């Protein structure tokens, strides 16, 4: 089985993330970036499926500026076989819909139009919309099976278990399909020294919009179907009262609640 895994390069959540004054997009240059942590689970799951099947390849696909190559590198070090980096100045500032358009065309090109299995994370750690998987499934005409906390593939069928709000569900679809996975599904491996060395020789395709036959006027900031009007740093929460429990901490807490009319 050949699997395409969509991975996003994101600004590190542990550093100071900001917007660019010039066009209200996320500043991706001033901060360290990395493979979105939640996409590591998708890479790991793809590697496990291929290892269990004893055949097939894992191709990681990212859409993003030059720095996004790091996300591919990390996935290749984990064990993915090949990478595709779609990069084009015209893509800068794309909204979710345009991102899914580029991903869809890249998946088609990578698989000759017929993907077997597309894996994604549950959400990115910067935009955190959690919508690209559904948009991609819509564009590719694939069934979507999302938020998997367990995944099995047998006889051309994908079965997942997911932990919903009101019920734990089993969901079934026939392949080809798009599956998103949660951080409950596995424990992503760390790249081994051997993996790091091997990654250097793995093939990474570089594609632009022209390679995908996408009209540049359909993507990027100006073509976005949504726009950021303004952004503002949230004022830090004024630190409130901190008391050290000297035997009456619980009573003081209750008094605070009463003062705030919670009681």
């Amino acid at each position, binding site marked *: 089985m050949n699997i395409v895994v969509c991975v996003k390069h994101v600004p590190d959540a542990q550093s100071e993330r900001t917007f660019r004054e010039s066009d209200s997009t996320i500043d991706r240059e001033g901060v360290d970036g990395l493979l979105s942590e939640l996409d590591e689970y998708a890479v790991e799951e793809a590697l496990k499926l291929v290892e269990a099947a004893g055949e097939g390849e894992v191709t990681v696909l990212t859409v993003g500026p030059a720095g996004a190559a790091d996300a591919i590198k990390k996935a290749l070090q984990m064990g993915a076989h090949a990478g595709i980096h779609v990069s084009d100045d015209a893509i800068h500032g794309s909204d979710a*819909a345009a991102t899914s358009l580029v991903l869809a065309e890249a998946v088609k090109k990578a698989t000759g139009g017929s993907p077997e299995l597309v894996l994604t994370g549950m*959400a990115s750690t910067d935009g955190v919309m959690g919508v690209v998987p559904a948009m991609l499934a819509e564009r590719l005409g694939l*069934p979507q099976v999302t938020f998997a906390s367990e995944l099995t593939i047998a006889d051309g069928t994908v079965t997942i278990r997911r932990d919903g*709000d009101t019920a734990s569900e089993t969901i079934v679809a026939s392949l080809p399909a798009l599956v998103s996975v949660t951080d409950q599904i596995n424990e992503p491996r760390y790249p081994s020294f051997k993996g790091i060395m091997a990654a250097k020789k793995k093939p990474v395709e570089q594609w632009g919009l022209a390679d995908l036959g996408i009209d540049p006027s359909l993507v990027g900031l100006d073509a976005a179907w949504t726009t950021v009007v303004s952004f503002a740093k949230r004022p830090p929460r004024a630190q409130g009262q*901190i008391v050290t429990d000297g035997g009456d901490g*619980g009573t003081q*807490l209750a008094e605070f609640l009463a003062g705030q009319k919670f009681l």
Partner: protein
Amino acid sequence: MAEVLVLVDHADGRLRKATAELLTIARRLGEPSAVHIGPGADRAQVTLAKYGAHKVYVVDDADAAGFLVAPQAEILAALVEKVTPAAVIIPSNAAGKEIAARLAIKTSSGLITDAVDVRAGADGIETTQSVLAGSYTVTAKVTTGTPIIAVKPNSVPLEASPAPGVVEAFAVTVSDAAKAARVTDSQPKKATGRPELTEAAIVVSGGRGTGGDFSPVEEFADSLGAAVGASRAAVDAGWYPHAHQVGQTGKQVSPQLYVAAGISGAIQHRAGMQTSKTIIAINKDEEAPIFELVDFGVVGDLFSVLPQATAEVKKRKG
């Protein structure tokens, strides 16, 4: 006035609180029309009308109810085409966002998720989102197509505003493609008798500091009529079910009051609770980052602070 479509969030006609909030918001933008997909519309109609639904489109079709999000997106797309609404308002939960995502592509319309406020601006509908783990507030707009806006629960206070709520059956033939993924088994969660996490006015959460004993957290929650949440550390340890996890990969909550007991306040946890109105923490470590967020903090052992607080709350409530 233009119609505003509101997707009803319900289980067999039992409405989730978010639906009334969405109707309250929709009234600012036009004339709300509720879209009820699945059984139970009779039961829901009264409440939908109470919160301002002029019309209730009912699609009571087994094909729509038994499958996942794709049929609902098709139904909404057909309604968008039929009534050319001013906007489509959808609950910003996992399923709602996926329905919105597919609808956006089908109708070539911009999508805004996780909105915490929606206004009828002078030149078009404006939304507010809280982004980057709550560190920024963004005002955004849809510029193309029908604005599709997914709104978080607990974003607006409920206001009743009775309207006719005229039921109108709407029939759509759901495509086979939309039925390609199906639910083959569903094990309902045991009811706890506590409010639902994302809807609750008060949430009390426990973390690794509970050492696996959630009873002081639950008892304090019950004294306040609160929902119980947990950090990922507590969930990963198997101490509390995943459905209760608060944070980036759990639930995002925005209650009037959030209490964190034995939780350090990692960025991924903050991402799920930072927009709470009032925040309280109990932690043994005075350096714990959670204290940066709090309105009131107790440096102390949760096993003595919480039971004392519980007793005091019960006493004061009589």
